[in-house]
């Protein structure tokens, strides 16, 4: 399995958690919503963290490019984190309209980000980085243990 397939699958898994939280919030079911939201943020932080701490540095090392696409991706990760915090606040306040509005915004931001990775960046990584799926799988497993 290549980086592209592996990471794309992880995007999809995160999407499902996102949908679960949103579905619950839309029904005013705040207990389920907050459980699902926490699971979502956890999965996202793991994904973003592995990109920032493992994949991007390895790619930057390999190619010598530090200010290109990876820098842009990092900035978008930060934009997402701002929205996570805002969503958490809306969740605490049980403010449905705010939660759904921020979620809508995050969804677009996240999807267009994922798309750039899936269609461009991961392809570039697969050309430059070791094509060793178990290596990345191990990073994911280690992340959960920390």
């Amino acid at each position, binding site marked *: 399995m290549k980086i592209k397939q592996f990471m794309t699958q992880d995007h999809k898994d995160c999407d499902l958690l996102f*949908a679960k939280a949103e579905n619950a919030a*839309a029904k005013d079911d705040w207990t389920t919503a907050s459980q699902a939201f926490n699971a979502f943020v956890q999965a996202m932080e793991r994904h973003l963290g592995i990109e920032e701490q493992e994949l991007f540095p390895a790619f930057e090392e390999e190619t010598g490019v530090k200010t290109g696409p990876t820098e842009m991706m990092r900035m978008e990760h930060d934009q997402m984190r701002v929205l996570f915090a805002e969503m958490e606040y809306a969740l605490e306040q049980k403010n449905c*309209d705010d939660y*759904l509005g921020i979620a809508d*915004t995050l*969804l*677009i931001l996240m999807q267009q980000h994922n798309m750039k990775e899936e*269609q*461009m960046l991961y392809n570039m990584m697969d050309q430059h980085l070791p094509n060793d799926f178990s290596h990345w799988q191990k990073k994911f497993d280690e992340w959960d243990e920390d």
Partner: protein
Amino acid sequence: MRADLSLQQAPPFSVPARFLVSAPFFGLLAALILLWYGPEMISHRWSPEVLAVTHFLTLGFLTMSMLGAMMQLMPVLMGMVFPRAVLFSGIIHTPLFAGILCLGLAWLMQIDLLFIVALVLLGFSFSLFIVLTADRLLRSANRHATRSMMLLALLALFFTTCLGIYLAMGHGTETVPLARQLTDLHLSWGLLGWVLLLISAVAYQVVPMFQITDEYPVIVQRWLGWLIFIALLSLSLTYLWPLEIVKTISTIVLASCLLTFALSTLWLLHKRRRLLADITMRFWQLAMSCLLLLTSVWGIATLIHADLPAFLLGVLMIHGFAMSTINGMMYKIIPFIIWLHLSVHNKNLRGRGERSSQVNVPHMRKIIPEAAALWQFRFHLLSLVLLLLATIWPLWFFYPAALLFAIAQAFLLFNLLKSVRFYNKKLAELSTFI
């Protein structure tokens, strides 16, 4: 030195905004013309008023917003930057806007000179857009099916424009005869080529992403657009070599493609993981149901050799399918890019040390409230139903339909203008919040 957080290739807000806001302006104009001229104008298909309304919708609403959406979405969908976006969007938008107005007025007031002016303006605007975009697309490293679909759509726009210009010269000059046998070809390239190909290209990406659904089947993504394009090409060739069998086969292929696209989209939406039915989703469902209805009615009428009301299919295609899709997309594109520009602006101010605290940037539903979008959707839906009835019983339904259509378009224009004002206000506010 760390550069300001850039907008990641997204063009400045004014670039897509001017196109997207122009669209409901032309929609409203079309509705007002219907109200002004009354039901006599649809007593036959070729009345100049009908042609003016048709083009305020197909060029003014559809093509106008499609160009704006392409300039906005291509950096994201294709990873390519539109060159010198502010400059070129101005050079493309202004003649397009003026050209559409001139074309409409040329029909309404029967001024031959205006036809010529319109054709020069439209020809210039479209050539520039097609050349610039095709050049970028050809050089893009992206290999998603959307890329080739967009190229085919551009080619279809080119054919539509050439045929349109030739037809319009038949209206506006003494020397060129009106080649009415080409009209069906012109409208097929326009609606099934340019409009349908571009909408499906975008749908392949945005429906799964924003509604969290499965992907379209790979065969659909890869072959549907080509089939449509080839069927349109064969149909065109039958004008040179009239072969009844080729014509029949092409028509059947086209109908199956429409059916496949509508059904697969409806199916994906039905199985979506995101249960929330947001406004854009409702617009998608409405649009695809119209496409389904259109194909069924068209197929059945052809089989039993029945005559349909002249404008039924046109209303289903232009208003029901294409305008609905775009109307729905606007409610995603506009609030999101406003949010994006504001949040980047906010972050840059902070990054330059001009402000210490993070001010919350309003989210999408504060930019266009869900309720405002929902009511506009309802008016749009109602106007569609009335317009369909009006194609069958014009005397009863023409005025109510035109009135509701005007309200729906004015409402959309209002929603968009309000969000633009909101953007300008917030931008100023953020800067003073230091």
